[in-house]
């Protein structure tokens, strides 16, 4: 017996020794150690589309080697001339915009200076049949011309005071080199597009990564303190977190729960300096239309009654919901699409939010009783959409939390699990009869956002059917006087606020978790579609 035990012990010892030996060999030969400090690795979720031809993607990620016309300040998010346009001006009614390019701007890899011809060439590529960019449809009605080598003019079919947004956060136009296209054709772009940004495109591993090197003496003066930056597409959040902990990545994006775990483990969560996204639960259908057409009649929905809408809003403990969903840096949103960075922001509405929308389940129950809920309603159940959307894993939990609070107040619900596209199909087909999570990212200028989500002007399928809002929306389209526009937006937001036309949730910053041993800080405004930008400002230890 003793000899068998000794055999087993010897065997175990051999196995252990072999494992240690194998481990040592692997760790010295095969293991991928933390990348050298000169290469910064950023691990994020895979993109919706993986291509060097920016216009064939939905615009979630502009290659950092490329530039747009208008930049944004990393701390305030305000438009600035840090990208290709040195200055810009518009005519009186905002229907013609002229951009003056930085005369010293030049493409990398000796493709010459950036000129108006490059802008016009890029614009024409972006409006081609293969374009998938969000917001590109309005570009198709624009005519662009070169005034001189460094001045380019955009003539719009209608006044657009928010045109800069298309060239900044929305990122509707990335500037490619015409000289490269003339020499190499589209294949040149597919292989290695030359850009004018502070990084040079080095290559991509399909579905894996994309790598850029930094440009010494870049024309903007930008001087990243590392030699390369590599973006790794990793779909599993736990794997991204492991990469961070193993020192394989300097920065990763993580869902909220893992951010907390990472912070507990000593990593640092960095938030964008400004809000990157607004979220809400949106009522669908033309529930405020007193004369809704038969096939679009949303008057039978419980939320067609303003008392029910107010009750739904008062039933929500937003502080608790937002704490559970988002944590640090999040702000309560008084009206979806209203933002202090853009014209139309109302301090007065923001100040009234607690009084009008504060958590008050007793008041919610009183309102429901006044409305005769549920007996007086044909459809008393509120269908809440449980869905997920890339970049918004919290949407399902948002619906569940809302349901829990509705339940306390006595509001009946029905959870509808459906994918995002199915919901979109119903909304576009004017057959939606649910309350769905929705996001506004990047945060659009208020005048644009309010038209998209509440009136018939931009997206008729999201029109709530309110004649007053639609009248204001129609007037806003043709109004060019800034003060009058401000006043009109104020009226629109007041109308939305007072009629409880939605369940506003939050303004959320973009966040990234960095390895505390490798990264000191990173300032970015959160104004792009992905929320991340200004990679040249990653500050290493």
């Amino acid at each position, binding site marked *: 017996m003793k000899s068998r035990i000794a055999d087993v012990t010897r065997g175990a010892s051999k196995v252990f020794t072999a494992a240690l030996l194998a481990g040592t060999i692997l760790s010295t030969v095969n293991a991928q150690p933390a990348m050298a400090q000169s290469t910064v690795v950023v691990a994020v979720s895979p993109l919706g589309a*993986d*291509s060097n*031809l920016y216009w*064939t993607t939905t615009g979630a990620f502009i290659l950092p080697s490329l530039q747009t016309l208008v930049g944004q300040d990393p701390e305030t998010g305000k438009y600035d001339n840090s990208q290709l346009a040195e200055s810009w001006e518009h005519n009186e009614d905002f229907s013609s915009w002229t951009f003056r390019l930085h005369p010293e701007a030049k493409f990398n890899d000796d493709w010459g200076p950036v000129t108006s011809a490059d802008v016009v060439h890029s614009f024409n590529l972006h409006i081609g049949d293969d374009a998938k960019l969000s917001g590109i449809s309005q570009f198709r009605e624009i005519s662009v011309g070169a005034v001189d080598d460094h001045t380019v003019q955009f003539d719009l079919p209608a006044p657009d005071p928010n045109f800069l947004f298309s060239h900044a956060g929305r990122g509707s136009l990335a500037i490619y080199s015409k000289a490269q296209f003339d020499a190499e054709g589209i294949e040149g772009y597919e292989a290695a597009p030359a850009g004018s940004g502070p990084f040079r495109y080095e290559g991509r591993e399909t579905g894996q990564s994309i790598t850029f090197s930094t440009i010494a003496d870049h024309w903007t003066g930008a001087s990243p303190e590392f030699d390369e930056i590599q973006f790794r597409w990793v779909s599993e959040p*736990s794997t991204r977190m492991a990469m961070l902990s193993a020192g394989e990545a300097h920065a990763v994006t993580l869902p909220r729960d893992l951010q907390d775990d990472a912070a507990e483990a000593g990593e640092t969560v960095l938030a964008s300096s400004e809000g990157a996204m607004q979220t809400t639960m949106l009522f669908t259908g033309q529930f405020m239309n007193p004369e809704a057409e038969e096939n679009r009649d949303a008057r039978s929905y419980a939320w067609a009654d303003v008392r029910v809408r107010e009750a739904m809003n008062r039933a929500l403990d937003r502080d608790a919901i937002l704490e559970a969903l988002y944590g640090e840096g999040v702000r309560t949103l008084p009206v979806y699409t209203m933002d202090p960075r853009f014209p139309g922001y109302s301090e007065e509405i923001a100040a009234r939010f607690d009084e009008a929308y504060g958590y008050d389940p007793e008041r919610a129950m009183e309102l429901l009783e006044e409305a005769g809920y549920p007996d007086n309603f044909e459809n008393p159940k509120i269908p809440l959409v449980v869905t997920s959307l890339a970049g918004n894993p919290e949407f399902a939990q948002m619906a569940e939390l809302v349901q829990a609070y509705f339940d306390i107040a006595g509001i009946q619900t029905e959870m509808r699990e459906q994918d995002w596209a199915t919901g979109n199909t119903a909304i576009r087909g004017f057959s939606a009869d649910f309350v769905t999570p929705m996001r506004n990212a990047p945060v659009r200028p208020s005048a644009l956002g309010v038209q998209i989500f509440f009136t018939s002007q931009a997206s008729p399928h999201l029109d709530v059917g309110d004649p007053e809002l639609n009248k204001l929306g129609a007037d806003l389209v043709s109004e060019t006087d800034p003060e009058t526009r401000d006043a009109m937006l104020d009226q629109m937001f007041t109308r939305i606020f007072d009629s409880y036309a939605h369940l506003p949730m939050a303004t959320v910053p973009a966040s990234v978790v960095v390895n505390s041993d490798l990264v000191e800080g990173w300032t970015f405004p959160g104004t792009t579609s992905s929320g991340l930008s200004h990679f040249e400002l990653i500050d290493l230890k």
Partner: protein
Amino acid sequence: MLRYLLQRGASSLFALLIITVIVFSLSQLSGSPVDALLPDDATQEQIDIFIREWGLDQPLWKQYLTFLGNAVQGDFGVSLKWPGESAMGFVLDRMPATLRLGGLAILITLIIALPLGIAAAVYKGSAIDRIAQGFALLGQSMPNFWLGIVLIWIFSVWLGWLPTSGIGSFAHLILPAIAIAWFQISALARLTRSAMLEVLDAEYIKLARVKGVSEWAVVFKHALRNAAVVPLTYFGILAASILTGSVVIESVYSYPGMGWVAIEAIRGRDFPVVQAVIIAYAVIYMLSNLLVDLLYVIVNPRIKHG
């Protein structure tokens, strides 16, 4: 034999046809491609053009026949997530990576499962048997995505021996291969054990022992050859399961094989690639099953006379 082969081939083709119907139907049920493929702010004119170009205004049966006709030629259209890439071409490009990973997983499975199963049967009731049984229980009840993440934390984060994810060196294959093989080791070890136990109890084995045949020859020459029928036939299913079952693990390890393509295409609502990858998997699975049937005929002659 030939007749049997033809019958099996015909039934495989019929199954493939059914799969195309299912793939097509599921694509139809999962929402309109308009919402997946056009930008949020697409105009009605863009939507109309898209519907015409994609034949979405045609009756469903006509759409299916068009799909089937193209599928027969391997034409599933162009990928939406990887613009410019042919859907099936992109899937096939990823196949070598999956074969490498699957091959290593199969190798690990065989190297561990067969000796473990044999040892557990030969030393029935011993510590080895109990360890093998415990391992089998653990292996079959542990979700592989969870195991994959645990392995990353142990070997990449804590010990720093292996990379967390990606592709490139042999080291990148080790953890995902183990995570895939884990379940199969358990299954194959149990099968081998039970098959061996049955055979070891047979009269001819007892006779061999009485005749003084060495224990080594009894186990590996007489018993294993007869007991191998069960694990051998399971091996085909195992190979297909490993190749198709890599979907989750490839995603966890960000390993760009066919499984990873499947997950990414589904996430990106890349209809052409989703359809291509499902058909590719179906073909792999059916070929494996066909191979198993043929092997079974070879090792069990009663089948071909039946």
